[in-house]
C-alpha cells in the first residue's frame, strides 16, 4: 500500500525536473540527457521546416500565373532543389525519430537513457554541421539547381554548390546512422526486466524497424555522395559518360538508399498513429502483432523496390517488371496497418482532441497517398505519370499528409508530458483544420493536373493548368498558416500553459508513469510494467487529478474514469 505522500511525490508536479535541474547554455549544449537532446532536435528540425517551407511558398507564389516572371528560371530551379533537399535531409528524416523518438523511446522502455548518450549528442551536432554545410550551398552564393536527387551528369557539370550540399547530406547521413544504431541497441539491451518484445508499445517497434533501415541504407548513400564528389573533383569516370562512366548507375545507387529512406520517414509516423489511435479510443490496438510485423516487413521489402523510381530510365524490362511486382507487395503491410487502426476506432470511446484530429487526418491523407502510389507502381500508368505533378502530389500526401501530420499529432500528444503544461485544445484543433484543409487544397489539384500532363519542376506551363496552380498556391498559404498557428499554440503552452498532471489522458505506456515534466533520471521508482494498451490498468486518482497505475492507487478511492477537461 503506497501512502499519499509517496503518491504525491511520484505522480505530482515535481519541483526539480529535467528542465530545471541544471541551468545555463552549457548544461544544454553538453547535455547527455536524451530528453534535452530531443528538444534541441525538435527546435532544429522546426527551423529547417520553416526555412524549406518558405522556399515552397516562394515557389508556389511564382507558379500562381502560367508565365510568371517572379523568379528567373535559374532561381526557380534553385528554389525547388533547396526546398526538397532541406526538407528531406534536414527535416523529415530526423524529425520523428530524433526529436520525438529521443524523448519518448527510453521512457517507454523504463530506461534512464539511450544506450549511448554521447553518440546521441554527437548525432545532434552532426545534424547541425550537416545542415550548415547544406546551407553553405546557398550562403556561398552558388546555390543548387540539380533537384534534391542530384542526378548525373548534370550534377557533375553544373557549377552550383553541389559539393557543399552533397557533403552536407553525407554528414546528415551519419547523424541518422548514429540515431538508428543507438535505438537498435537501446531496444535490444535496455528494456525493463520482463518487458518482452510483445509488451512493447508499437511506437517502439516502428522506431526499431526505422533504425534497421537507417543503419543498412544510409551508408550506401554515403558512398554514393562521396563518389559523386570524387567524380566532380577528380573525374574518376564512374558516373560521367565523358570518362566512360554510367549516369544511370548513379540513379541506382541513389535510389537504393532513397527508397528505404521514405520508409524511414513513414514508419515512425505510423508508430505515432498507433499510439494516438489507441489512447484516444481508449481501446487496445487491434492486431498488435500484425502491426508490429508489418513494420519490419515494410523495412525489409523497402530495400527491394528502388527501381520503381527509374521505370523510364532505360533499365531492362525484366527488372522493371520485378520492381513493379514487389512495389505492389510492399503496399500490403501498410494497408494492414490502416485496417487495424480503423478496427481499433470501432466501438472505442473517442476523444476528439488535437492529437486525435491529427491521427484521423493521417489515416485519410496517408490512405490517399498510399493508394496513389499504386498508380505509380503500375507500369502502364507510370509511363504517363512519371515526372508529372501526380508524383509530386503522391509524395506530398505521404510525407506531409503522413509524416508531418503524425509529427504534429505526436508533439501535441507528448507535449504535456514534456513540459507539464497543457496546450489550448480548441486552437490546436483549429490549427489541425487549417493544416488539413490547406493541405488538401494545395495538393489535390496537383493529382488532377499531373494526370492531365503537367510536368514537375517546370517554371512555366500551359494556361490550361493555371486554375489548378492557383488553388494549390492558395492552399499552400493556408497550410503555412495552420502550421504556424500550431507552432504558436505549442510554444505558448510550453511557456505559459496551465499546469497539467502526469497522465491526463489515461495512457498506459510506461512514459506516462513518470511525472510531468519527468525527472532527469526519468523515473523516481521502477515503473510498473503493464501492457501498454491495457487502459484499465490506470485508475483515476482524485487527489492528484490524474491516472496512475492501479498498484499505486488508494484502493478505497479507485474512481471511475473521469472525463478530462477540455481547455
Amino acid at each position, binding site marked *: 500500500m503506497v501512502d499519499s505522500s509517496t503518491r504525491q511525490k511520484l505522480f505530482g508536479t515535481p519541483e526539480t525536473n529535467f528542465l530545471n535541474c541544471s541551468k545555463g547554455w552549457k548544461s544544454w549544449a553538453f547535455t547527455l540527457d536524451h530528453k534535452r537532446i530531443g528538444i534541441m532536435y525538435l527546435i532544429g528540425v522546426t527551423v529547417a521546416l520553416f526555412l524549406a517551407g518558405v522556399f515552397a511558398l516562394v515557389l508556389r507564389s511564382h507558379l500562381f500565373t502560367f508565365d510568371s516572371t517572379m523568379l528567373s528560371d535559374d532561381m526557380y530551379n534553385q528554389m525547388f532543389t533547396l526546398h526538397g533537399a532541406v526538407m528531406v535531409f534536414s527535416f523529415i528524416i530526423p524529425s520523428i525519430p530524433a526529436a520525438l523518438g529521443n524523448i519518448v523511446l527510453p521512457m517507454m522502455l523504463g*530506461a534512464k537513457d539511450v544506450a549511448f548518450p554521447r553518440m546521441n549528442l554527437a548525432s545532434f551536432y552532426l545534424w547541425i554541421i550537416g545542415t550548415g554545410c547544406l546551407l553553405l550551398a546557398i550562403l556561398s552564393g552558388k546555390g543548387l539547381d540539380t533537384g534534391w536527387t542530384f542526378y548525373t551528369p548534370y550534377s557533375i557539370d553544373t557549377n552550383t554548390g553541389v559539393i557543399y550540399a552533397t557533403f552536407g547530406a553525407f554528414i546528415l547521413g551519419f547523424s541518422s546512422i548514429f540515431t538508428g544504431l543507438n535505438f537498435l541497441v537501446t531496444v535490444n*539491451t535496455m528494456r525493463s526486466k520482463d518487458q518482452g518484445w510483445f509488451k512493447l508499445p508499437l511506437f517502439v517497434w516502428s522506431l526499431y524497424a526505422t533504425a534497421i533501415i537507417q*543503419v*543498412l541504407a544510409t551508408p550506401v548513400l554515403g558512398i554514393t555522395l562521396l563518389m559523386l564528389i570524387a567524380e566532380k573533383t577528380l*573525374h574518376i569516370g564512374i558516373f560521367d559518360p565523358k*570518362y566512360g562512366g554510367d549516369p544511370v*548507375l548513379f540513379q541506382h545507387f541513389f535510389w537504393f538508399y532513397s527508397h528505404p529512406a521514405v520508409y524511414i520517414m513513414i514508419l515512425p509516423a505510423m508508430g505515432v498513429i498507433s499510439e494516438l489511435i489507441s489512447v484516444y479510443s481508449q481501446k487496445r490496438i487491434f492486431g498488435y502483432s500484425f502491426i508490429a510485423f508489418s513494420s519490419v516487413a515494410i523495412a525489409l521489402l523497402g530495400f527491394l523496390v528502388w527501381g520503381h523510381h527509374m521505370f523510364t530510365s532505360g533499365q531492362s524490362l525484366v527488372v522493371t517488371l520485378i520492381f513493379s511486382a514487389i512495389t505492389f507487395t510492399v503496399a500490403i503491410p501498410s494497408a494492414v496497418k490502416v485496417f487495424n487502426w480503423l478496427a481499433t476506432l470501432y466501438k472505442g470511446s473517442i476523444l476528439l482532441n488535437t492529437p486525435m484530429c491529427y491521427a484521423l487526418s493521417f489515416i485519410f491523407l496517408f490512405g490517399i497517398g498510399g493508394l496513389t502510389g499504386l498508380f505509380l507502381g503500375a507500369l502502364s500508368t507510370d509511363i504517363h505519370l512519371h515526372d508529372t505533378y501526380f508524383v509530386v502530389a503522391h509524395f506530398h500526401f505521404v510525407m506531409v499528409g503522413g509524416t508531418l501530420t503524425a509529427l504534429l499529432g505526436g508533439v501535441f500528444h507528448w507535449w504535456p508530458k514534456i513540459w507539464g503544461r497543457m496546450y489550448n485544445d480548441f486552437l490546436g484543433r483549429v490549427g489541425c483544420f487549417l493544416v488539413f484543409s490547406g493541405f488538401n487544397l494545395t495538393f489535390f489539384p496537383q493529382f488532377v493536373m499531373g494526370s492531365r500532363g503537367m510536368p514537375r519542376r517546370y517554371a512555366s506551363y500551359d494556361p490550361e493548368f493555371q486554375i489548378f496552380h492557383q488553388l494549390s498556391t492558395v492552399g499552400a498559404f493556408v497550410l503555412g498558416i495552420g502550421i504556424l498557428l500550431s507552432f504558436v499554440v505549442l510554444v505558448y503552452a510550453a511557456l505559459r500553459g496551465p499546469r497539467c498532471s502526469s497522465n491526463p489522458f489515461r495512457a498506459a505506456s510506461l512514459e506516462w508513469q513518470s511525472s510531468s515534466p519527468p525527472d*532527469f533520471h526519468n523515473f*523516481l521508482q521502477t515503473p510498473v510494467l503493464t501492457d501498454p494498451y491495457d487502459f484499465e490498468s490506470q485508475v483515476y486518482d482524485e487527489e492528484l487529478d490524474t491516472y496512475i497505475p492501479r498498484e499505486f492507487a488508494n484502493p478505497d478511492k479507485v474512481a471511475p474514469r473521469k472525463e478530462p477537461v477540455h481547455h
Partner: protein
Amino acid sequence: MAVADSHDTHDDHHDLYDHGEFIAHHFDSAEQQFDSGKLGIWLFLVTEVLFFSGLFVAYTLYRTNHPEVFEQAHVFLNKYLGGLNTIVLLFSSLTMALGVRAAQLGRNKNCSVYILMTMVCATMFLGVKAVEYSHKWDMGILVRSAFNLTYTHPTPTTEIGKSLHISDYLVYLCIVPALLLAGFLAASVISKLINKTMLAKFMVAMAITVSGYFLGVVVGVVFMSATDAETGSSHASVITEQPLMLMASTQDEHDEGDHDEGDHDKAAADPNHEGDHADHEEHFGAHPADGGEASFDAHHPDPSTLSRDIGIFFSIYYCMTGLHAIHIIGGIIALAWLYWRSLLGHWRTDYFGPVDYVGLYWHLVDLIWIYLFPLLYLID
C-alpha cells in the same frame, strides 16, 4: 527512493576507474554495458560493410562490362607488395587478438605491447602503400580523367630524392610522417622533463608507431627493386638509366569531335558497333619520342594497345584502397587511445570492452583488405 542528483558529483580529478566505476550511469550493470557496446560495434561494422559495398558493386559492374580493362590494368600492380601488405595486416590482426586477450586477463602491460605492435603493422602497411602510390604517380597512372601512362621516369628534384634515387612523390608522402615523428620525439622528451612519465611513454610509443611507416617505405622500396623482373615495377621509385620513350594520351576531345562526320558511315557499315573497340584503341595514340627503341613486355605493355578506359580500373583502385587507408588511419587513432588507457591500467577482468570493440573493428579493416587484395592484385 530519493530524487537522484542530476549533477555528476565527481569533481575531483582522480581516475574513476580506480573505484571500479566504469559503469556508465544509465546502465544497470556491467553486463548490460558490455552487451550494449558489443551490439553497438557489430552494428557499426555492418554500416562499414555497406559503406564499402558501393565500391565493390562499382567494381563488379565495371569488371563485368569491361573485362579487358581489368585484364590490362592489373599488370601495373605489384602483387608481391600487395602480398606483403596482406601478411602485415594478418599479423596485425593476430597481435590485436592477443591484445584483446591480455585485456580480458587484466594484463595491461602485455596489452599495451600488443597494441603497439598492431599500430606499427598498421603504419608499415601505409608505408608500403606510399611506395606503391608514388610509383604509380611517377608513371602517370592516375584516375580515369588524368591517366597518362609514361614509362619515362621523372627525375627527382628534391635533395633526398636525388641522393637516394627515390621519387619526389614518395618524399612528399614522407613529410607529414617525418613531422609527426619529430613532434612525438620532442613531446616525449618534454614530457620526461616535466615529470609526466605516462605521457612520455605514450609519446615514445607514438614515435615508434610512426617509425613503422618509414620501415614500410624502406621495405617497400627494397621489395619493389627485388621483384623488378617479374612485375611492372622496375620504375618503382628507383630511377632506371634507360627510360622507355613512349607517351600515351587519352584523347577524349578527339573522340567526340570524330563522331560527327564519320559516324553515320560507320554506323551504316557496322550496325553492331563491333569495330568500336578497335577505334578506341586507335585513338589511344602513341608517339615514339626522341628516337630510341621501344621495348614492351607483359609488364610494360604498349600503351597503344591499352583500352581507352583503362584509367577506370585505377579510379576504382584509388577509391577502394584510399577509403581503406582512411579506415586504417582511423583505426590507428582508436588504437592510440587504447594504448593510453592501457598505460593507465584501465583494463580488468570485468572491464575490457573497448579493447574488444576496437579489436572487432580492426579485424574488419583486415577483412576488407583480404577482399581487396585478390580483386585488385590477383586478376589473372
